[in-house]
């Protein structure tokens, strides 16, 4: 395939813009390295995030690019933050608005339904992913739709929507470039905002070469984008239905708002005569004044750009067309009732916690083996399946950076600690951890046993003490030197050099 490049894009010296915010450093890999794949999924068995993370890091080019790209987003986010004097106040406001809305969610949902219906929108309710998929399929079938275009939506990922539609002979075309890359590669999105960020340009070139016939040796971003544009445009123009998500649902106006950088949601919504929006029930906000707070925070937190290129308000169907909103619960009501974990529902899916997370940047989003990766994933995924995702809350150093970049002030790192307590309490902890901690707890509770467990200065075992080695892992020394044991412990030094407590009182 040869793509007609716009004139300015063929100029090798042109100041190429890397993405919406236009100030990213272009990153070019030096070598072509095969893309590491995500976590191995084995039914309901607990996902091994660290195994997949180790494979990602072994692909050094991928890891380095991934870390650099996401750290760049984090730095741009910081720059935008410093441009807004009332930043911390905005975070307080956003958090407060979400808490208020969630505490009166039934009221706001019904208010939205009433106002949206008055606007000519047909509102549907789905209690889970299966119901959502069935509702959408029913709408599509009754109108004879065989080709559906859609914009990116994490909710439809939750629902296994594409697989379901494939089984039911409805062709789904993703219109977000990153999401389209992932669809063509038969991979889930690795990040809520930048779904293909774990891929190098060379990976994209090879996916496109196989699927849409582009030149496998041309990994120029503009060439690849142009190829995709040419391949997808005809499909967009002939699709009979369009689907979007929704970033914010405004109860008082009965409208919803979709934020994108590529304008693809607008194409999906406005080209065909049928628009279906699938939206989680936690996306509700009371009014347009509240919306302003979130619009100021969303893209600054996500990409470090002041606003998304498109902020589209959908108020009702165009003449001669239909608009449907499917409000989906899929575990949200249950989460709302969880004392420790309900604040996760405040999430606006900006991905700032992923960009800042040092573990995420080095692991890649697919290592989590779940719809939601990174810090927000660690606290949301176990609400879907506690056994399968029981290891995820341990994929964190609990450094707290996520909590402090979060525009809606979700206490992410505290919830990670709470999840660990909950999992250990419910027996959903790996036997190795449990045995090790039980041993440590007993040793550390007794000064005599503890002292006896310590390595002696001149003993052959110049190592970590026994209780820390009471496991098959003994992984400290694989890539790190083990600290040398000094001749005496502080305790021994103190006994020799200072009067001990109690002695002074006797004299």
């Amino acid at each position, binding site marked *: 395939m040869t793509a007609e490049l716009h004139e300015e894009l063929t100029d090798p010296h042109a100041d190429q813009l890397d993405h919406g915010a236009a100030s990213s450093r272009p990153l070019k890999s030096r070598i072509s390295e095969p893309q590491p794949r995500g976590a191995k999924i084995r039914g309901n068995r607990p996902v091994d995030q660290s195994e997949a993370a180790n494979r990602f890091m072994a692909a050094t080019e991928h890891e380095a690019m991934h870390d650099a790209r996401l750290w760049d987003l984090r730095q741009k986010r910081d720059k935008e933050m410093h441009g807004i004097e009332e930043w911390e106040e905005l975070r307080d406001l956003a958090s407060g608005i979400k808490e208020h809305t969630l505490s009166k969610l039934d009221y706001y949902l019904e208010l939205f339904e009433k106002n949206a219906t008055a606007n000519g929108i047909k509102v549907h309710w789905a209690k889970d992913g299966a119901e959502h998929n069935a509702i959408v399929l029913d709408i599509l079938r009754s109108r004879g739709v065989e080709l559906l275009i859609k914009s990116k939506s994490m909710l439809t990922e939750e629902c296994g929507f594409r697989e379901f539609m494939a089984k039911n002979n409805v062709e789904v075309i993703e219109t977000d470039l990153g999401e389209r890359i992932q669809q063509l590669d038969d991979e889930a999105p690795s990040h809520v905002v930048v779904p293909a960020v774990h891929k190098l340009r060379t990976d994209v070139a090879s996916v496109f070469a196989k699927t849409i016939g582009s030149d496998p040796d041309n990994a120029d971003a503009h060439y690849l984008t142009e190829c995709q544009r040419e391949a997808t445009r005809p499909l967009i123009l002939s699709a009979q239905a369009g689907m979007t998500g929704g970033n914010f649902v405004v109860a008082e106006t009965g409208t919803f708002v979709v934020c994108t950088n590529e304008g693809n949601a607008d194409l999906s919504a406005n080209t065909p005569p049928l628009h279906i929006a699938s939206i989680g029930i936690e996306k509700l906000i009371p009014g347009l004044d509240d919306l302003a707070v979130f619009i100021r925070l969303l893209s600054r937190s996500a990409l470090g750009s002041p606003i998304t290129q498109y902020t589209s308000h959908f108020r009702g169907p165009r003449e001669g067309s239909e608009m449907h909103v499917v409000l989906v619960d899929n575990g949200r009501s249950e989460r709302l009732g969880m004392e420790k974990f309900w604040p996760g529902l405040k999430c606006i899916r900006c991905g700032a916690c992923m960009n*800042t997370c040092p573990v995420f940047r080095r692991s890649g989003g697919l290592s989590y083996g779940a719809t939601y990766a990174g810090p927000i994933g660690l606290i949301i995924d176990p609400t879907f399946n506690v056994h399968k995702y029981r290891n995820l809350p341990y994929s964190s150093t609990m450094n707290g950076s996520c909590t402090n970049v979060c525009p809606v002030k979700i206490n992410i790192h505290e919830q990670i600690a709470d999840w660990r307590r909950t999992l250990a309490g419910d027996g959903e902890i790996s036997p190795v*951890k449990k045995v090790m901690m039980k041993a440590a707890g007993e040793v550390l509770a007794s000064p005599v046993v503890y002292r006896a467990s310590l390595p002696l200065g001149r003993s052959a075992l110049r190592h970590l003490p026994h209780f820390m080695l009471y496991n098959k892992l003994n992984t400290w020394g694989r890539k790190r030197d083990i600290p040398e044991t000094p001749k005496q412990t*502080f305790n021994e030094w103190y006994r020799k050099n200072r009067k001990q407590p109690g002695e002074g009182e006797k004299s």
Partner: protein
Amino acid sequence: MKVGLFVPCYVDMFHPETGIATLELLERFGLSVEYPVDQTCCGQPMTNTGCEREAAKTEELFVRNFEKYDYVVTPSGSCTNQVRNNMTAIEQSDAVKHVRSRTYELVEFLHDVLKVDAFPWAEFPHRVALHNNCNTLRNLRIASMSERREEPFSKPKALLKMVRGIEFADLTRPDECCGFGGTFSVFEEGVSAKMGQDKVTDQLKSGAEYVTSSDSSCMMHQEGCARRMGANLKYIHIAQILNGARA
């Protein structure tokens, strides 16, 4: 003012010089400092793994050792955070509440309680990179963090600036976690080591001769990575510099 000195298990074992420097430094300010010899640990390894029940007896022992002091001081931010914010496996008696509210990390004790304004004995003519442990930074708040829009401040730097001859080396990611993370360093060894290597690389690029921190745990991990990488960097606890170590 009666001060109880808590020397965390890994400091006791691997870095007794940090415990000694902390004790001597506090004694320089005329405080009556005692080290209860029956102390072990604050319970952090168990709590951080979620095993609260397994931490209970260790927490009880901690409180028994320290309840009689006006202040408990320790050269570790993560242990302070454990005691102050996470010691919840045991019943919250008056003794427990007293110990929890009176436990201070060394830097914040010097800065906020003693309000030290000089270390006349201290001189450290070296280029030093400062590492803030994530618990001290984001939970104890001993310094401003890059995630928030707030006035820049740093208690450890304010203290180090009183040391003659010291020069600071700037890191490109000063408050990125180094990957220690307590039991994370053992359970998630791969990512932990990679984060440590990246931290050491950043320290090397800064031209630092020494790295200092108020936490030995992060430095133990970083030093382990640095040695394996053959990096020419030295690690020294802030207590030693403030107590007058010259190298």
